[in-house]
């Protein structure tokens, strides 16, 4: 009788937390269960205890080498609350928004061109040597040139608002430490129209790909789920920087609406499973089986009522048409959604650059100190929650973070399982194509794994096939 088998996929490098996929086969070589293991973040919540409150927005940037600005801003928002500031001076809020749009833009561009484009252009089954940005540039030099220029534009915005491209200091409790001088503004204005055109082209590429591969998109890691994000309080518009929480179910029914994010712990439960360091959040009233949800670009396209910039809003309408207005549950549509957000960010940046408030000098507000504060932001990868308590000596006594990768934990596990069931079951040997499909499913969520996002175009992977007693049946390795 055939024994149940365990397939293990683990990244070789462990730079910033690491992930590992184990696929459990039953005796008939059918996928029984698939698990994505991620080790990250918990140590950090302890490390931050005892530090001074104004250090936190700077320290938290070390959580993630890929989207430090999102942590910077979420922590700063929580510290605004703790410092008793509910309304920032307009210059401060607009500078932070500018920083955030620059960050989302550069992160999405990086993901799309460097990580997704090789898969999309050459197919998931293509050999590893082919699936990287260098091959994309070789075949399409103009696309490569634009990718680099757009990413640089986003990074330059970050530098102009935070002082540095990485580990800046711009946002401080109650405000910002700089404004945008006119020469810097004019340098951005000089290229913003070009950015807008390129963003539209990239969006068209993502849309075309999705529509041309509708069959693949419909079956690849596509499954119903709830969706959650911030939306603008006044009208439900897409708002990446601030708003109230909204959650919808797989067919668009409201689960909660206009929820003050400081009350996140009343509606979300963070489930712990013995095999994973990363928690599994779910919506309390629905329970762990039905209450899990997805966050990120596609979740946002599903939750928002509309987008308040015209080009991105028209693009959203096209995306919504695919599902006749209902939530879209296909993992791969994230790429399309991501490029709609790039266009939205470019439009928002343009709007802000024309706003004289960016040259204002009232940068910081103060207020009555509070003990507790929560800051939430829509980061490139989705909703990001920072929650702190601070004692009367100004030091942090409690910290709880829910990062996008954690929100998406269940969704990513389901995506891996879905792909595994369709592509791995019944296979005797581990093939490169099998690895690639699992990798593409994880990567569509853009998790904060160095292995998933640092290596240009390919994750260093190790896959091992065990029998029930732990004996090695087959092994395959690929390094970046």
């Amino acid at each position, binding site marked *: 009788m055939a024994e149940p088998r365990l397939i293990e996929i683990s990244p070789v490098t462990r730079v910033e937390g690491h992930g590992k996929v184990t696929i459990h086969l039953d005796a008939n070589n059918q996928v029984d269960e698939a698990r994505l293991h991620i080790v990250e973040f918990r140590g950090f919540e302890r490390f931050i205890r005892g530090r001074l409150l*104004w*250090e936190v927005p700077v320290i938290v940037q*070390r959580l993630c080498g890929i989207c430090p600005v999102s942590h910077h801003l979420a922590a700063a928002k929580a510290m605004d609350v703790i410092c008793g500031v509910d309304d920032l001076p307009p210059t401060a809020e607009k500078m932070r928004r500018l920083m955030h749009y620059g960050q989302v833009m550069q992160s999405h561009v990086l993901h799309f061109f460097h990580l997704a484009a090789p898969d999309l252009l050459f197919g998931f089954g293509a050999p590893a040597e082919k699936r990287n940005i260098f091959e994309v540039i070789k075949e399409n030099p103009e696309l490569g040139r634009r990718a680099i220029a757009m990413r640089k534009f986003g990074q330059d915005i970050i530098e102009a608002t935070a002082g*540095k491209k990485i580990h*800046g200091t711009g946002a*401080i409790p109650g405000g910002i430490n700089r404004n945008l001088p006119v020469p810097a503004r004019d340098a951005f204005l000089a290229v913003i129209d070009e950015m807008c055109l390129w963003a539209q082209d990239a969006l068209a590429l993502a849309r075309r790909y999705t529509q041309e591969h509708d069959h693949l998109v419909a079956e690849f890691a596509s499954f119903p789920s709830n969706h959650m994000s911030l939306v603008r309080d006044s009208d439900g518009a897409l708002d990446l920087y601030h708003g109230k929480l909204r959650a919808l179910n797989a067919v668009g029914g409201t689960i909660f609406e206009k929820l003050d994010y400081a009350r996140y712990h009343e509606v979300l439960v963070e489930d712990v499973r013995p095999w994973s360091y990363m928690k599994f959040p779910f919506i309390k009233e629905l329970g762990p089986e039905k209450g899990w949800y997805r966050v990120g670009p596609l979740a946002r396209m599903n939750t928002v009522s509309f987008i308040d910039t015209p080009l991105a809003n028209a693009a959203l309408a096209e995306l919504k048409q695919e599902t006749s207005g209902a939530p879209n549950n296909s993992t791969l549509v994230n790429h399309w959604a991501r490029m709609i957000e790039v266009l939205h960010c470019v439009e928002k940046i343009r709007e802000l650059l024309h706003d004289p408030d960016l040259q204002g000098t009232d940068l*910081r507000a103060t207020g009555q100190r509070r003990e507790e504060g929560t800051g939430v932001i829509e980061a490139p990868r989705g909703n990001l929650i920072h929650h702190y308590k601070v004692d009367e000596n100004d030091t942090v006594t409690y910290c709880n973070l829910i990062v996008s990768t954690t929100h998406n934990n269940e969704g990513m596990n389901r995506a891996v399982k879905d792909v595994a069931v369709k592509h791995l079951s019944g296979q005797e040997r581990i093939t490169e194509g099998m690895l690639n499909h699992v990798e593409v499913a994880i990567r569509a969520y853009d998790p904060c794994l160095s292995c998933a996002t640092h290596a240009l175009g390919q994750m260093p992977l190790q896959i091992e096939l065990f029998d029930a007693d732990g004996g090695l049946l087959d092994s395959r390795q690929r390094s970046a």
Partner: protein
Amino acid sequence: MTSPDFTFVIDGRAIPGKPGQTIMEAADAAGIYIPRLCDHEGLRHQGGCRVCTVKAAGRSVSACTQPAAPDLVVESETPHINKLRRDLVEMLFHEGNHLCPICEASGNCELQAMAYRLDMTAPTKMPYLEPCRELDVSHPDIALDTNRCISCGRCIRASQDVDHKGVFGYVGRGIHRRVAVNGSDLAHTDAAVTDHAISAEVCPVGCILRKRVGFATPIGEREFDHGPIGHEIEGGSSD
């Protein structure tokens, strides 16, 4: 009767000296910067850190304490001496816990600026002690992160000689010698945020912190964003 002014030589340049001046004071006046950490304007010389080491008449001496003398020949900016200085600065990074990207002193910190000036670009292979002492946050307006203290003693001298208080003192010996407050914690001393010892200029690193200042100064406007450490002295040179 006072002795007359004289000249002596630093790195081949003849510069004027006055009786009673140290080599460093005469060099400063002539626009020549000699690296330093424990010495600070307005405080008595201590001669502790040795970063100001120069060769005078063939002997290694601390420029902050050694008197200038007629016709003395001093070497300062030589590869050999700068290597020695770099080694000393490196050791300070090994003894403390310095993570500049999260430190609010970054850009204003003399230790960091000295490391840049001396070309300390890569970590060494030696182990880092990385102490994890708890912060002293007891005082309403002042915080202490002694993991970054370089035991320069500037706060001790400022508190004693300028503030006439004695908030800080040394405890322990040798490599274990470090600065502590004279009380169970800072709240139990008579330290005030207006003390000279607490002012931004006295502590060269991010150890003595004035609460709620944090990262209010943007990158680009911090002290050493304007030039390397010593540039004000060098910029003041007549040639």
